[in-house]
Protein backbone atom coordinates (compact mmCIF):
# COMPACT_ATOMS: atom_id res chain seq x y z
CA UNK A 1 0.00 0.00 0.00
CA UNK A 2 2.82 2.35 0.92
CA UNK A 3 4.63 1.59 -2.34
CA UNK A 4 1.57 2.37 -4.45
CA UNK A 5 1.08 5.63 -2.61
CA UNK A 6 4.65 6.68 -3.36
CA UNK A 7 4.29 5.78 -7.04
CA UNK A 8 1.09 7.80 -7.30
CA UNK A 9 2.75 10.74 -5.61
CA UNK A 10 5.66 10.62 -8.05
CA UNK A 11 3.27 10.43 -11.00
CA UNK A 12 1.38 13.36 -9.56
CA UNK A 13 4.56 15.43 -9.32
CA UNK A 14 5.46 14.57 -12.92
CA UNK A 15 2.03 15.61 -14.18
CA UNK A 16 2.23 18.78 -12.10
CA UNK A 17 5.60 19.71 -13.64
CA UNK A 18 4.33 19.12 -17.19
CA UNK A 19 1.08 21.01 -16.67
CA UNK A 20 2.76 23.91 -14.90
CA UNK A 21 5.36 24.19 -17.65
CA UNK A 22 2.78 24.24 -20.45
CA UNK A 23 0.50 26.72 -18.68
CA UNK A 24 3.43 29.00 -17.85
CA UNK A 25 4.73 29.00 -21.42
CA UNK A 26 1.29 29.64 -22.85
CA UNK A 27 0.45 32.48 -20.48
CA UNK A 28 3.90 34.02 -20.80
CA UNK A 29 3.62 34.20 -24.57
CA UNK A 30 -0.02 35.06 -25.15
CA UNK A 31 0.49 38.81 -25.38
CA UNK A 32 3.90 38.74 -27.05
CA UNK A 33 4.60 40.38 -30.41
CA UNK A 34 4.37 37.09 -32.28
CA UNK A 35 4.36 33.42 -31.41
CA UNK A 36 7.01 31.25 -29.81
CA UNK A 37 8.06 27.94 -31.34
CA UNK A 38 4.91 26.17 -30.23
CA UNK A 39 2.65 28.49 -28.33
CA UNK A 40 0.48 31.25 -29.79
CA UNK A 41 1.47 34.85 -29.38
CA UNK A 42 -0.43 38.09 -29.58
CA UNK A 43 -0.80 40.76 -32.23
CA UNK A 44 2.01 41.16 -34.75
CA UNK A 45 3.13 44.71 -34.07
CA UNK A 46 6.69 45.18 -35.21
CA UNK A 47 7.77 45.24 -38.83
CA UNK A 48 6.89 47.35 -41.85
CA UNK A 49 3.31 46.95 -43.13
CA UNK A 50 3.43 46.11 -46.83
CA UNK A 51 1.40 48.32 -49.17
CA UNK A 52 1.17 48.39 -52.93
CA UNK A 53 1.16 45.63 -55.51
CA UNK A 54 1.57 41.98 -54.70
CA UNK A 55 5.21 40.95 -54.37
CA UNK A 56 6.83 38.07 -56.23
CA UNK A 57 6.12 35.44 -53.63
CA UNK A 58 8.80 33.09 -54.94
CA UNK A 59 11.13 34.53 -52.31
CA UNK A 60 9.17 32.49 -49.76
CA UNK A 61 10.83 29.35 -51.16
CA UNK A 62 13.75 30.36 -48.96
CA UNK A 63 11.54 31.01 -45.94
CA UNK A 64 10.94 28.01 -43.69
CA UNK A 65 8.27 29.42 -41.42
CA UNK A 66 6.25 32.60 -41.11
CA UNK A 67 4.22 34.19 -38.34
CA UNK A 68 0.49 34.24 -38.93
CA UNK A 69 -1.98 36.27 -36.87
CA UNK A 70 -5.74 36.02 -37.08
CA UNK A 71 -7.61 39.27 -36.62
CA UNK A 72 -10.47 37.56 -34.76
CA UNK A 73 -9.55 36.02 -32.38
CA UNK A 74 -6.34 37.98 -31.98
CA UNK A 75 -3.60 35.39 -31.73
CA UNK A 76 -0.56 34.42 -33.75
CA UNK A 77 1.39 31.25 -34.47
CA UNK A 78 4.36 29.93 -36.45
CA UNK A 79 3.49 28.11 -39.64
CA UNK A 80 4.87 26.72 -42.90
CA UNK A 81 4.37 28.54 -46.19
CA UNK A 82 4.28 27.36 -49.80
CA UNK A 83 4.27 29.40 -53.00
CA UNK A 84 2.62 27.97 -56.08
CA UNK A 85 1.78 29.70 -59.36
CA UNK A 86 2.29 33.13 -57.86
CA UNK A 87 0.06 32.55 -54.83
CA UNK A 88 0.97 31.65 -51.26
CA UNK A 89 -0.56 28.94 -49.13
CA UNK A 90 -0.32 27.67 -45.57
CA UNK A 91 -1.05 24.14 -44.28
CA UNK A 92 -2.57 22.86 -41.08
CA UNK A 93 -2.11 19.17 -40.36
CA UNK A 94 -3.52 16.63 -37.92
CA UNK A 95 -6.96 18.15 -38.47
CA UNK A 96 -8.90 14.95 -37.84
CA UNK A 97 -7.04 13.95 -34.70
CA UNK A 98 -8.18 14.93 -31.23
CA UNK A 99 -4.86 16.56 -30.45
CA UNK A 100 -4.99 18.38 -33.77
CA UNK A 101 -8.37 19.84 -32.97
CA UNK A 102 -6.90 21.35 -29.82
CA UNK A 103 -3.51 22.28 -31.26
CA UNK A 104 -4.82 23.70 -34.54
CA UNK A 105 -7.85 25.58 -33.25
CA UNK A 106 -6.78 28.59 -35.31
CA UNK A 107 -7.60 26.73 -38.54
CA UNK A 108 -11.16 26.08 -37.41
CA UNK A 109 -11.46 29.71 -36.36
CA UNK A 110 -10.15 30.90 -39.72
CA UNK A 111 -12.45 28.58 -41.64
CA UNK A 112 -15.54 29.46 -39.63
CA UNK A 113 -14.77 33.16 -39.16
CA UNK A 114 -13.95 36.02 -41.49
CA UNK A 115 -10.48 34.67 -42.33
CA UNK A 116 -8.81 38.04 -41.95
CA UNK A 117 -5.16 37.61 -41.09
CA UNK A 118 -1.77 39.27 -40.96
CA UNK A 119 1.37 37.41 -41.99
CA UNK A 120 4.85 38.50 -40.99
CA UNK A 121 7.46 37.24 -43.42
CA UNK A 122 11.09 38.23 -43.05
CA UNK A 123 9.98 41.02 -40.74
CA UNK A 124 7.43 42.53 -43.14
CA UNK A 125 3.72 42.35 -42.32
CA UNK A 126 1.16 41.54 -45.02
CA UNK A 127 -2.61 41.89 -44.57
CA UNK A 128 -4.24 38.79 -46.01
CA UNK A 129 -7.51 36.89 -46.39
CA UNK A 130 -7.43 33.16 -45.63
CA UNK A 131 -9.42 31.04 -48.06
CA UNK A 132 -9.56 27.28 -47.53
CA UNK A 133 -8.74 25.19 -50.61
CA UNK A 134 -10.36 21.76 -50.45
CA UNK A 135 -10.01 20.54 -54.01
CA UNK A 136 -9.13 21.53 -57.53
CA UNK A 137 -6.14 21.48 -59.87
CA UNK A 138 -4.24 24.06 -57.81
CA UNK A 139 -3.69 21.39 -55.17
CA UNK A 140 -1.14 19.56 -57.33
CA UNK A 141 1.24 22.50 -57.35
CA UNK A 142 0.66 23.25 -53.68
CA UNK A 143 1.26 19.66 -52.61
CA UNK A 144 4.32 19.37 -54.83
CA UNK A 145 5.82 22.46 -53.22
CA UNK A 146 4.91 21.22 -49.73
CA UNK A 147 6.52 17.83 -50.40
CA UNK A 148 9.62 19.38 -51.92
CA UNK A 149 10.02 21.97 -49.19
CA UNK A 150 8.96 20.11 -46.06
CA UNK A 151 8.79 16.44 -47.05
CA UNK A 152 11.01 13.87 -48.66
CA UNK A 153 10.58 15.27 -52.16
CA UNK A 154 7.91 15.92 -54.78
CA UNK A 155 7.55 12.39 -56.10
CA UNK A 156 4.30 11.36 -57.82
CA UNK A 157 3.53 9.11 -54.84
CA UNK A 158 4.09 11.94 -52.36
CA UNK A 159 1.89 14.29 -54.39
CA UNK A 160 -0.88 11.72 -54.63
CA UNK A 161 -0.67 10.98 -50.89
CA UNK A 162 -0.73 14.70 -50.11
CA UNK A 163 -3.77 15.27 -52.29
CA UNK A 164 -5.58 12.41 -50.61
CA UNK A 165 -4.76 13.81 -47.15
CA UNK A 166 -6.14 17.19 -48.13
CA UNK A 167 -9.27 15.83 -49.77
CA UNK A 168 -9.86 13.59 -46.74
CA UNK A 169 -9.56 16.58 -44.42
CA UNK A 170 -6.43 15.42 -42.60
CA UNK A 171 -4.53 18.45 -43.91
CA UNK A 172 -6.18 21.79 -44.48
CA UNK A 173 -4.75 24.25 -46.97
CA UNK A 174 -5.48 27.97 -46.91
CA UNK A 175 -4.64 30.42 -49.65
CA UNK A 176 -3.34 33.66 -48.21
CA UNK A 177 -5.05 35.93 -50.72
CA UNK A 178 -4.81 39.69 -50.86
CA UNK A 179 -7.68 41.29 -49.01
CA UNK A 180 -10.48 42.32 -51.33
CA UNK A 181 -9.06 40.25 -54.18
Amino acid at each position, binding site marked *: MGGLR*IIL*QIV*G*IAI*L*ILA*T*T*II*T*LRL*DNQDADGP*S*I*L*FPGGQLISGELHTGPEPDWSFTDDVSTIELQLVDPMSSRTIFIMESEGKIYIPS*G*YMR*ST*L*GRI*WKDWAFQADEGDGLAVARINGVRYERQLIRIKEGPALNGIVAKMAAKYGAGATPEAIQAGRESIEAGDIWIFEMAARGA
Partner: protein
Amino acid sequence: MKTKNYLALCAAVAVAVVLSVLYVPGLSDTVEQVLLAFLASNA
Protein backbone atom coordinates in the same frame (compact mmCIF):
# COMPACT_ATOMS: atom_id res chain seq x y z
CA MET B 1 4.78 11.11 2.67
CA LYS B 2 1.82 12.58 4.49
CA THR B 3 -0.75 14.50 2.51
CA LYS B 4 0.11 17.82 4.13
CA ASN B 5 3.79 17.45 3.29
CA TYR B 6 2.98 16.24 -0.22
CA LEU B 7 0.82 19.27 -0.95
CA ALA B 8 3.56 21.55 0.33
CA LEU B 9 6.02 19.78 -1.97
CA CYS B 10 3.64 20.22 -4.92
CA ALA B 11 3.36 23.93 -4.22
CA ALA B 12 7.13 24.29 -3.98
CA VAL B 13 7.67 22.34 -7.19
CA ALA B 14 5.08 24.43 -9.04
CA VAL B 15 6.72 27.67 -7.96
CA ALA B 16 10.15 26.34 -8.89
CA VAL B 17 8.93 25.27 -12.33
CA VAL B 18 7.30 28.62 -13.04
CA LEU B 19 10.40 30.57 -12.02
CA SER B 20 12.68 28.25 -13.99
CA VAL B 21 10.61 28.50 -17.17
CA LEU B 22 10.41 32.27 -16.90
CA TYR B 23 13.97 33.08 -15.88
CA VAL B 24 16.39 30.30 -16.91
CA PRO B 25 17.78 31.36 -20.32
CA GLY B 26 17.04 28.91 -23.11
CA LEU B 27 14.95 26.57 -20.99
CA SER B 28 11.63 27.61 -22.51
CA ASP B 29 12.95 27.10 -26.06
CA THR B 30 14.31 23.67 -25.15
CA VAL B 31 11.02 22.63 -23.58
CA GLU B 32 9.09 23.82 -26.62
CA GLN B 33 11.38 21.93 -28.99
CA VAL B 34 10.79 18.74 -27.02
CA LEU B 35 7.03 19.29 -26.98
CA LEU B 36 7.03 20.01 -30.72
CA ALA B 37 8.94 16.83 -31.44
CA PHE B 38 6.49 14.88 -29.30
CA LEU B 39 3.47 16.37 -31.04
CA ALA B 40 4.95 15.85 -34.49
CA SER B 41 5.43 12.17 -33.83
CA ASN B 42 2.30 11.46 -31.83
CA ALA B 43 -0.46 13.82 -32.98
